[in-house]
């Protein structure tokens, strides 16, 4: 099997830059959300459509990023 419909895009969630990588593998779409800096994975999801996989990843990433505390420096 090979990856099809590979795509990447950036968006902002809870004030943080997020990078989404989505592709089709077999009959499922896979999506990975990471924080652009430093690039750590926040969510890895699957779905029967691109939207389903991306929406699940975005929801999970938003939840995690919403917990991040910024401190005064």
């Amino acid at each position, binding site marked *: *099997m*090979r*990856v*099809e419909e*590979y795509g990447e895009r950036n968006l902002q969630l809870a004030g*943080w830059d997020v990078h989404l*990588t989505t*592709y089709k*593998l077999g009959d499922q779409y*896979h999506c*990975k959300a*990471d*924080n652009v*800096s*430093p*690039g*750590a*994975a*926040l969510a*890895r999801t699957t779905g029967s459509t691109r939207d389903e996989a991306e929406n699940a990843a975005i929801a999970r*990433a938003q939840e*995690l*990023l919403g*917990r*991040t*505390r*910024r*401190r005064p*420096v």
Partner: protein
Amino acid sequence: MPDYVHPEVLVSTSWVADHANDPNVRVVEVDVDTKAYDEGHVPGAIAWNWGSQLCDTVQRDIIPRDKYEQLMSNSGISNDTTVVIYGDNNNWFAAWALWQMKIYGHRDVRLMNGGRKKWLSEGRELTKDVPSVQPVKYKAGEPDLSIRAFLPDVQGTLSGKSASLVDVRSPQEFSGEILAPPGLPETCQRGGHVPGARNIPWGKVCNDDGTFKNYDELKALYGAEGVNESKPVIAYCRIGERSSHTWFVLKYLLGLKNVKNYDGSWTEWGNLVGAPVERGAAAKAGA
């Protein structure tokens, strides 16, 4: 990879595809997200779990020597095997695995340039099949601790400027604005950085496709921050995997002779009672 000082430690995705059936080559996937391998991997690749197989699971430390030998043996890796490691996040934990293999003296271990991301984006073959591996004999060397920094090494940089410290975390982690990468659990008591450290985030060494930038770009990046052959270098991050990526770049792609990875990193320093901490954004180079 002609322009790096040690191009032999890096292979391309096409090289890996061409050597899929080479009995002298073992391909290993090491991901931050340990479920990625199950989704589909390079045909013939096995997987190592950084959280359970590449560390001491009781005390905080790298993998003990006997466990390392057992891991290599069970992976079908002999002392003469060419090992190619790749993984997600542009090879974060792949570099972590390579660093440990170098500590134990494995002669021929390489990274697949661009890691898992490049393999996927190129639409290369993937499989869910896990290869059957025959255990072989493996004997580790005496640990080479010249590539590993411990707390006293870092403390020694405070007064005598004995080494250049490179903090490879994000600017927000460096400044103390956040205590861990966004979205991840906080794992230290204090934010900031080791006094005197330069902030050169690990990702600055990578192109958009996950491959490493060329020699001239890397040399300019570190040279602008005063990181060069004139002084030993110690790289650190939060737990030591991002800094092993930077260690790889400095040691092999730029060829600096004295580079150490401080795997205690911020989760050690930022939890120490009485350790000096600097906060705020990075000063301009030369300031």
